[in-house]
């Protein structure tokens, strides 16, 4: 069943804006240590907001690439476990262009959610 608006992203944004603009300055005056913790919380909410918008499509793309790369179907966790095993065993390495394309794309999608300013 579809929920009424706000959407996940809209609600997370509203909470984040309130905490950053109103709660954090008050906390900084009262208890700076908690002000720092609040910034950590606000930053984490922003990650969740981006994940709610970008995560499902990123997961689907990663899954499709992994199925092609590994050559069989499975859950994201199963396919990644198999890929990790192959990499540790040395069955694939950085000279494998398809592997590197996959890792670049997956990492680009992850950083776009976790910290888009990272460079």
């Amino acid at each position, binding site marked *: 069943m579809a929920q009424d608006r706000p959407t996940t992203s809209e609600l997370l944004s509203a909470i984040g804006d309130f905490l950053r603009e109103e709660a954090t300055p008050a906390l900084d005056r009262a208890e700076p240590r908690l002000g720092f913790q609040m910034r950590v919380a606000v930053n984490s909410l922003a990650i969740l907001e981006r994940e709610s918008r970008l995560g499902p499509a990123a997961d689907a793309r990663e899954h499709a690439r992994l199925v092609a790369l590994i050559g069989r179907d499975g859950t994201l966790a199963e396919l990644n476990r198999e890929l990790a095993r192959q990499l540790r065993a040395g069955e694939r*390495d950085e000279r494998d262009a398809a592997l590197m394309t996959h890792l670049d794309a997956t990492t680009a999608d992850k950083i776009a959610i976790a910290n888009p300013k990272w460079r």
Partner: protein
Amino acid sequence: MTIHTANEAEIVAAGLASAASRHFGGPATIEGLRRESGGASRQTWCFDALVGDQRHELILRRDPPTTGAAERASATALDRATEFGVLRAAFRSGVRAPEVLFELAAQDGLGEGFVMRRVGGIAIARKLLRDPPYADARGKIARQLGEIVARIHAVDTAGLPPLPHREAADQVAALRTALDSLDQPQPVFELALSWLDRRRPAPTARPLLVHGDFRTGNYLADEHGVTAILDWEGAHLGDPIEDLGWLCVKSWRFGSIDKPAGGFGSREELWSAYENAGGIAVDPARAHWWEVFGTVRWGVICLTQAWRHLSGSVKSMELASIGRRAVETEVDLLQLLKEAS
């Protein structure tokens, strides 16, 4: 995270008064005691001890008595007594490090810990890298770090307490073990560890004292530059180039990404200062290996810090959130491996 109470401060003040009186050989009064930010398990307290008409500006580093092995930041971290011994040896051989004075005793009731003289300066990277008072210092820090780390590596290992000996191969194995203890497969870290494993440098002919966490954020600096190297709990014997590689990991540039030496200078500046101060000749390939290794290491630390929360051993939103920083090192690793090929 534990909120420290007035009660905790009173207990610490009482214990410090007895320990300081014993060390200085006269009744000591404790003033201005306050807890610095930092972890719940490993505490840093700032205070003055008044003995007669002498005021001593001091720092306490301690693990509270309740701290169990599960709360230790890392299984490879030194205990406080060993850290004390390493700091004392380093200070005596002229390393810019805090002067340690005395250890806590069981009767002080404060757990394991030691007291050292307070050193001026700040450790906050973002201020050192951007604030006006540090403009001059910014031009000096890379060279100073090269000189200081050369001194660390020159400490006579015969004068050190027993330390773990960790070479490149041990460290790669330790990161794989750490990954295995987490519940999520990590293809980029596996790729990088296999890359490292195939290229690992030969063990050092003579293992030296390695600081183990030599990076921006772990030293104090003032407007003239570096005043003291802190955080010695990762000290071990091994390959000295490990410290140079770790300092250059991109996460320790705090945004000044075009200055690999901790955000303050070039690798070449760092290496030449190191060599001129008596360090061994730096092989760029070996330094690159340790920089790649350090990048994986920081990524795995991010995951294990989050795991301390996820496993229930410490409840901490801050630790939990660090898990989402691991991907920053994945981005950097893919870049580093491309540059190397």
